[in-house]
C-alpha cells in the first residue's frame, strides 16, 4: 500500500529538519507543504529530498494540508497520514494510525492525546481542548476524546470525500462535518503529544480557539 505522510509547515525551520529525518527512516513518501513561511522551512524540506510544495503566501493549516492531500492523491496514495511539523508527535505512532485503515476496518483514524499521552500539557490547554470536544459533539454529533488533534489517517476513499474548504484552523470542525455527511467510519487511536517550550510558544492561544469555535458555529448553522 502506498502510504503518504503530509505535513503542513509554517515557519518551522528550527524543528522540521529533525522531524523529516526521523520520518525518512521509516517512510519514503513524505510531503511537506510550506505554507508561505518567511524562514528557511522550504529550503530545509527541499534539501531533504522529499516532496516539498510551497504556498507562495500563507493560507493556513487547513489549506496547506489539503494541498498535500491533493498532491498525494495525484500520486496514487492509498493511505494518507497528517503529521505535525514541530515535533510534537512520535513517528512510531504512525503505525497505529495506519493499521485500522490497512485492515479495512475504518476510513478515518483520529489520533487522541487523551487516550494516549499528553506530555507536559498545561491545564488551560487541556480545558480548551475538552471544550472543543464538547463543541464538536454539539455541532456534529460526533463523540471523540480529542477533536483538535492534527494526527490523522485517511483512506484514499476518505481523502477523496473529505472536502476541506476552511483554510485556517477551523478545518478541524469541518473535518468532523465531512465525516458525518459522508458517513465515513472512524476510530480513535491513542497517540502521544509532547509539549515543550517551543510548541507552547507556537501553539494557538485560547482566544484564538474561541474565535474558531464561533466560526464553526456560523458555518454549521448559518451558511
Amino acid at each position, binding site marked *: 500500500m502506498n502510504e503518504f505522510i503530509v505535513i503542513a509547515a509554517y515557519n518551522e525551520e528550527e524543528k522540521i529538519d529533525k522531524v523529516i529525518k526521523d520520518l525518512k527512516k521509516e517512510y519514503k513518501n513524505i510531503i511537506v*507543504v510550506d505554507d*508561505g513561511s518567511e524562514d528557511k522551512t522550504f529550503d530545509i524540506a527541499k534539501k531533504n529530498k522529499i*516532496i*516539498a*510544495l*510551497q*504556498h*507562495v*503566501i500563507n*493560507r*493556513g493549516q487547513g*489549506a496547506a494540508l*489539503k*494541498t498535500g492531500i*491533493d*498532491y498525494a492523491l*495525484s500520486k496514487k496514495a492509498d493511505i494518507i497520514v497528517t503529521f505535525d511539523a514541530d515535533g510534537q508527535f512520535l513517528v512510531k505512532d504512525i503505525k497505529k494510525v495506519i493499521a485500522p485503515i490497512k485492515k479495512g476496518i475504518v476510513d478515518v483514524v483520529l489520533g487522541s492525546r487523551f487516550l494516549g499521552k499528553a506530555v507536559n500539557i498545561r491545564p488551560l490547554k487541556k480545558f480548551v481542548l475538552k471544550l472543543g470536544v464538547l463543541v464538536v459533539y454539539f455541532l456534529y454529533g460526533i463523540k471523540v476524546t480529542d477533536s483538535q488533534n492534527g494526527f490523522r489517517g485517511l483512506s484514499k476513499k476518505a481523502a477523496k470525500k473529505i472536502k476541506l*474548504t476552511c*483554510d485556517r484552523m477551523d478545518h478541524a470542525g469541518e473535518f468532523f462535518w465531512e465525516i458525518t455527511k459522508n458517513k465515513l467510519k472512524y476510530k480513535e487511536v491513542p497517540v502521544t503529544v509532547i509539549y515543550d517550550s517551543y510548541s507552547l510558544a507556537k501553539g494557538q492561544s485560547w482566544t484564538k480557539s474561541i474565535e474558531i469555535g464561533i466560526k464553526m458555529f456560523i458555518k454549521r448553522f448559518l*451558511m
Partner: protein
Amino acid sequence: MISVIQFLALLFSLFALSRVILRAKDKKITSGELVFWLGIWIILIVVIIFPEISSFFATFLGIGRGTDAILYASIGILFYIVFRLYVKLEETQKELTKIVRERAIKNKKK
C-alpha cells in the same frame, strides 16, 4: 426651514448618491447593486426633506419616534450588508487559496 443636521445629512446623502452613480458609470457595481444603493440613498433624501414620513411609519409600526424607526431600519440594513461582506470575503479567500494551491502543485510537477 430645514435644520443644520438636515442640511448636513442631505449633503452627505447627495455625495453618496453621486458616488453610486459614478461607480455604476465605471461599471464597478452591478445593476442590482445600483438599484439597491440608489434606493437606500433616495429614500434617505426623501426622509431627510420630509421627516414627517418617518413619523408616519413609526406610528404605523408602533415605534415611538420617527428617528427611532430610522435607527432600527439602519441597524437592520447594516447587519445585512456586513453579512453579505462576510460571505463575499470568505469566497475571495477560498479562491485565493485555490490559486495558491494550484501554483504549488504545478511548480512541483514541472
